[in-house]
């Protein structure tokens, strides 16, 4: 015998038909243990649907979960995610067509509500998300979408129901479901399984965790990189950029007569082309080899006896070479002078990074300063001959020998060179062959002032950056060890 149960509320009527298979005799109310058919009506909307047990259980479960969402505001993770609002208007048109195609019993109240304030918030339904879907619609309305199963196997499924429910209508649907759950004589194996939503399932929390991940990864990477960098040693010397554009003053300096050399016997000349003096005072050591190579080529073309000298030139010392250069024949000297000038043009800077270049250390420079002043004092006999301050630029090798000097101011240029104490202490490579400065050795440059009061002032020559200036090694072609010299 079929059992028929009906749960009725103003906005929803649920009718269940089934059988009692428990075999209980004499019970005042038979137990509906097998559900044959379920029918849910929405009288105010004029819609209804019929379904089997599986669909009805899904319907009841979904409505029960959504009822809890209305109370707490937290959507259960067991409900399909709320669709986005894209395409809401298209869906709304379909919805209105759907509502309009039905008979006039459709609640005008709901239709009006849809047409007014809920329009922009109508979400688009994804049928793949489930046969029963329900979402909030605005502040006080709800959208219930139902795709009933086909009545018989092989038949086409009926059109889906898309219902706009007010809170009161929704409550009646939920209450009908709750009454079914609460009835111990209807499907007793189905129970209302209410369960609070876990903190982990809060949508905002998971999104927050996802948002935090990149920050965590970035911070940890930065910390790891900082740890690795902490292990690296501090750099002892910080090298400055070597390429520097020459200022006009430096170009003029390069064009000025360079250090006087012993044995030249010629006063310094203003014309660089004809000057035997050779020193581009500010030339980096790194360009010396290239300069030497150029020079080799030029001296090869000019020279008559220095074919082998080109090979030896790399080993010969620049300072030692100054004197022989001065004694060379005019074409040779001119070629060497040109090669030096081209080297000077290529060279950009001779400023020293940290006061230490080649063999010079700061302590050494101060020692050289003392040695130079003492040497000048010892050699300076006729102090009264100096009427005005004489300023010189003096190149000193690492072993303390004065390799060359250059007058800086006009009185110094005009002063008789044979009376200069610098002339007396000047290193003569011819006399001390083999004991001079080593090849490719830089010279420390000092500023020497012989005052009219007979005092000697010696100080390190400082560049524009406040660092000591050094003279690069002179090219080896001028070496006195060349064959034929």
């Amino acid at each position, binding site marked *: 015998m079929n059992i028929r149960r009906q749960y009725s509320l103003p906005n929803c009527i649920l009718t269940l038909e089934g059988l009692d298979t428990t075999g209980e005799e004499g019970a005042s109310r038979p137990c509906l243990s097998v559900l044959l058919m379920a029918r849910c009506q929405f009288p105010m909307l004029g819609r209804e649907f019929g379904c089997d047990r599986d669909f009805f259980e899904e319907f009841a479960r979904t409505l029960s979960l959504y*009822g*809890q969402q*209305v*109370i*707490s*505001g*937290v959507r259960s993770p067991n409900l399909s995610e709320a669709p986005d609002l894209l395409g809401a208007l298209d869906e709304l048109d379909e919805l209105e067509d759907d509502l309009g195609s039905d008979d006039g019993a459709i609640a005008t*109240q709901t239709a*009006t*509500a849809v047409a*007014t*304030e809920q329009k922009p918030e109508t979400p688009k339904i994804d049928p793949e998300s489930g046969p029963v879907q329900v979402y909030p619609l605005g*502040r*006080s309305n709800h959208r219930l979408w139902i795709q009933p199963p086909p009545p018989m196997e092989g038949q086409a499924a009926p059109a889906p129901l898309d219902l706009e429910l*007010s*809170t*009161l209508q929704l*409550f009646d649907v*939920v*209450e009908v479901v*709750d*009454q079914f*759950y*609460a009835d111990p004589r209807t499907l007793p194996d189905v129970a*209302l399984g*209410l*369960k*609070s*939503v*876990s*903190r*982990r399932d*809060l949508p905002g929390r998971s999104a927050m965790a996802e948002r935090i991940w990149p920050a965590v990864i970035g911070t940890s990477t930065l910390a790891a990189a900082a740890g690795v960098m902490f292990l690296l040693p501090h750099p002892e010397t910080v090298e400055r950029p070597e390429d520097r554009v020459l200022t006009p003053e430096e170009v003029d300096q390069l064009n000025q007569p360079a250090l006087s050399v012993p044995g030249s016997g010629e006063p310094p000349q203003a014309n660089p082309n004809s000057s035997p003096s050779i020193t581009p005072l500010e030339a980096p050591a790194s360009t010396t080899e290239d300069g030497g190579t150029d020079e080799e080529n030029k001296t090869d073309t000019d020279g008559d006896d220095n074919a082998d000298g080109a090979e030896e030139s790399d080993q010969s010392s620049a300072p030692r070479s100054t004197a022989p250069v001065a004694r060379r024949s005019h074409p040779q000297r001119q070629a060497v002078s040109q090669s030096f000038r081209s080297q000077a043009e290529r060279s950009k800077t001779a400023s020293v990074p940290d006061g230490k270049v080649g063999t010079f250390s700061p302590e050494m420079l101060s020692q050289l300063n003392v040695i130079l002043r003492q040497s000048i004092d010892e050699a300076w006999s006729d102090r009264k001959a100096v009427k005005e301050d004489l300023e010189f630029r003096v190149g000193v090798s690492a072993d303390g020998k004065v390799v060359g000097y250059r007058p800086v101011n006009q009185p110094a240029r005009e002063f008789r060179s044979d009376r200069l104490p610098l002339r007396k202490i000047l290193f003569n490579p011819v006399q001390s062959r083999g004991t001079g400065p080593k090849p490719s050795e830089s010279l420390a440059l000092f500023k020497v002032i012989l005052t009219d009061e007979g005092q000697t002032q010696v100080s390190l020559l400082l560049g524009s950056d406040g660092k000591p200036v050094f003279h690069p090694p002179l090219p080896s072609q001028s070496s006195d060890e060349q064959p034929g010299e």
Partner: protein
Amino acid sequence: MLSRLVTPSLSRPECPRRVARQIDLLLLAIEALDLGGSEAIVRSAKELNLESVVHSRVHLWRLRTANAQRDAHQRRSLSLDEGKALVLIITFLARQLTVLVRQLVMGRDQLQVRGLPLDHHFRLADYLERFRAHFRARMNLKRTAVAAYNTDEKLDALALELLECLLFCTGTAGDQRLWTGLFDGEVA
């Protein structure tokens, strides 16, 4: 009676602050619905045999001061049994007020459909006005969370939310739904 409600799994066996606040607000809504609400709350505790938990009007007041937004907030939390008892009282009273609650919710819906302000429904306006007065009289308006309800519109929206919640409390499984919903997002 209390065993009807499932004890949630919490890190501390007490009602979280949000739960205490929501329970107090629902009681406030009941008081706004029913002029003799506060007396009815104590009376229903006796009818439900919950006197061991809510034994006097003063004790009820002390329980409600667990709401941190109260002006007379005391630094005590609501135990789970106290929370359960108050939820059972709320649903008990809500069922007694079923007709009124349905009328007000339906009236709200009709006003919305017609685009009319809420004060066009006399009974609804009465409820909203009383709720606003109760809220402002009892809550600490200096607190940031309370100060957010600084306009009549915001307080009306809160009162309507509570009214919808009370509507679902009138259901067959209203107490279980309310109790479970209170701990949504609070349980581990």
